[in-house]
Structures are given as structure tokens and as C-alpha cells.
């Protein structure tokens, strides 16, 4: 299982992602692909994300059963705790006026 969520992504990237994955909500893509395809898709995201940000989560055989990686800046950042990946949510910064990403939580 693979889930990609993009925020503030250019329409060409969103269209590209919809080639392989199902867009179940705006910017939320779901699919089931192999590791190599996943890496290929992530390379597309890396090239096309522009000013936006993205997160990709997929099932693996870690203890929590999945892993994820991010791209671009977001108030949520990955945090590692003795082998388990969690997410830290930064407090509101002065310069940031980004809307809270309710769609992704």
C-alpha cells in the first residue's frame, strides 16, 4: 500500500501522479506498487513539487508496519524515537502563515 499526499503542488504533478495512483481526495493518492515503482514515482514528485510539499507512506516490514518520507517544508516533521518514526508538530512560527493541513490529519 502506498499513500502520497501533496500540498500546494503544481497541477502537472498532480496529473502525473494520477497516472499511477488513485486520487481519493484532493492531493491524496493511494495505490499498491513495488519498491522500484515507488522510487520512480517519488522521483517524479521530487522533480515536480516546486514550492509545495509532499509526504509518502508505504507498507514495509518495520515494527510499525510502514515507513514514510517527506519533501518540502511543513509544520509536521518526521521524528525518530528509538527505531519508531513519529511526527513532530512545530508550534506556529512568526513568518509562517501556512494554513493548517486539516485535510491530511
Amino acid at each position, binding site marked *: 500500500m502506498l499513500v502520497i499526499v501533496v500540498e500546494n503542488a503544481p497541477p502537472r504533478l498532480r496529473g502525473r501522479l494520477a497516472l499511477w495512483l488513485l486520487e481519493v481526495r484532493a492531493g491524496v493518492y493511494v495505490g499498491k506498487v513495488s519498491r522500484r515503482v515507488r522510487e520512480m514515482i517519488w522521483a517524479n514528485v521530487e522533480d515536480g513539487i516546486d514550492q509545495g510539499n509532499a509526504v509518502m507512506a508505504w507498507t514495509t516490514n518495520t*515494527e510499525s508496519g510502514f515507513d514514510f518520507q517527506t519533501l518540502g517544508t511543513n509544520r509536521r516533521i518526521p521524528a525518530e*524515537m528509538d527505531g519508531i518514526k513519529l511526527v513532530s508538530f512545530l508550534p506556529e512560527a512568526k513568518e509562517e502563515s501556512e494554513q493548517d493541513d486539516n485535510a491530511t490529519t
Partner: protein
Amino acid sequence: MSQPILPPLKPIPIKDRVSVLFVEKGNLDVLDGAFVVVDKRGTRTHIPVGGVACLMLEPGSRVSHAAVALASRVGCLLLWTGDSGVRLYSAGQPGGARADRLLYQARLALDDAARLKVVRKMYAMRFKEEPPARRSVDQLRGIEGVRVRKMYELLAKQYGVSWKVRNYDHTNWGSGDIPNRCLSSATACLYGISEAAILAAGYAPAIGFIHTGKPQSFVYDIADIFKFETVVPVAFRVAAKKPRDPERDVRLACREVFRQTRLLRKIIPTIEEVLAAGGLNMPEAHPEAVTPAIPNKESIGDAGHRG
């Protein structure tokens, strides 16, 4: 009062959880119904407590009342630990949720013949062979002690660790040598999970069969079954590398071995199997027993979870 919008919280089975998480610094609190650690700068890190078997709280953590209540409602065992998991105190998941199981466990422990059978079963599971016949619990304990010392030596040699003797001073953490320290933090992880499993299965941590007289006697009994196939090799392997941060490396390696051995899947069935070897039946309700006025709610968690 209006109806609550969300369905009530229920614990999920131990086997579907992540084994253990450690919280070192920060305030544990509940925000919008979620369990969070808030650090000095206000960064919030969500901890999925409902999906964790036990949470180790190291020095430097503070817990709010709401956080403890939430952990207890989702069946996550909170363990307050000293430096690097040498355990001090625990709560968060009250034990003794099932009278029938407590009585069963107590009956097995009180009946000499049954206790011997349980101890023999533990021995057999641990060393993968039947113990010699016609030995008392005391004699078996002696044989076990010798075998354990041998296994430590053997594993130490196998991983190239210089090993003298298992020794630790629980009042002074930094005192042990590296292999002993690695072993202590590895076994602390295993004890935490074992205690969570024993409580979740509805048994009492204090009623042990080989170990007695400690609040966690049964925890040591159960953890010993898995110790040499999981945490001891891990601890020696880490110690052999002379790591800069042994505790962290041990935890990462423990997590990996718990996953590989599918420990959380095996641990409750093993508890049941060991106790079943005693050959006694679960006590039946006595004839004049009256069923509870308010029936128990259905739960998807384990028997000892208070759903």
C-alpha cells in the same frame, strides 16, 4: 446532555501493537483527545498510545492526569523507569482485571504438583528439551542457574565479548561493564512487554512459579522463556561493537528482534500454554454466583483489558 459524537475508546489486542516506546523529555498530555509529548519549545509529537504495548517514561518526563487516564483507557502500560529503563515504578494499566484467571493462576501456584508441572513446562520451552525427571522445583532452579551461566559464556564467546559474570547494581546505573549494561537495558524492554502482556491476559505479575517474592515474579518467569532467543544475543551483539550510545543501539536491535520473532503475537499464547501445563481447569463459577448487574461490554482487546 447530548450523545457523545465518537464511539467509546476500546483497547486493541497486544498482538497488533508496536512493542515499546521511550519518552525521555517533555510533558505528556492530551490535546484534542490525542496523546502528545510537548517539549520546551512547544513542539508536539503525537504518540499513538493505542497502538503501543508499553510506554517507558524516563527521567525528565512529566505526565498529566488526563494522559494517564487516556493510556489506561486504550490499554497502554505506562512504566516509570530510571536511567535507561531500569524500572522503578509502574501504573497505567491496572492488573487483576479477571478474577477467574487470578484464581486459576493462584491455584496453580499453590498446588505443589501443578506448580512443578508449570515450572517443568517453562524449563522445556526455554531450553527446548524436557528437564530431567523427578526433580523438585528447587533442583530445577539449580540446574537452570548453571545452564544460564553457561549460555551467557557461550553467547559472549560467540559474539566476541569479554564476559565475567552477570552483575548489576540497580541503584547505580553507570557501574556495570558494557555487556552488563546492554543486557540490563535489553531485559528492561523485555520485562516491560512481558508485564503488559501478563496484565492484558488478565493475570497477576506478582504470582510467579520459578521466581517468587517480587512484585514482578511472573514477569521474570515469562520473560526468561524468551530471553535467550531474543534480548541476550542482541545485547552481546551490540556490546561487541563497543557502541558510543549502547542504550539506543540496544533498543533498536531489540525492536528488530521482537519483530522478527513476532514476540507480541506469541507472548499471550505462551502464557496460556505454560499455565495449561499445570493440568488444572479454569475455575468454574460457584453455584450461588450472581452475574454482574451491569453486563461487561464487548471488547476487541485481550481478556485483561478493561474495555
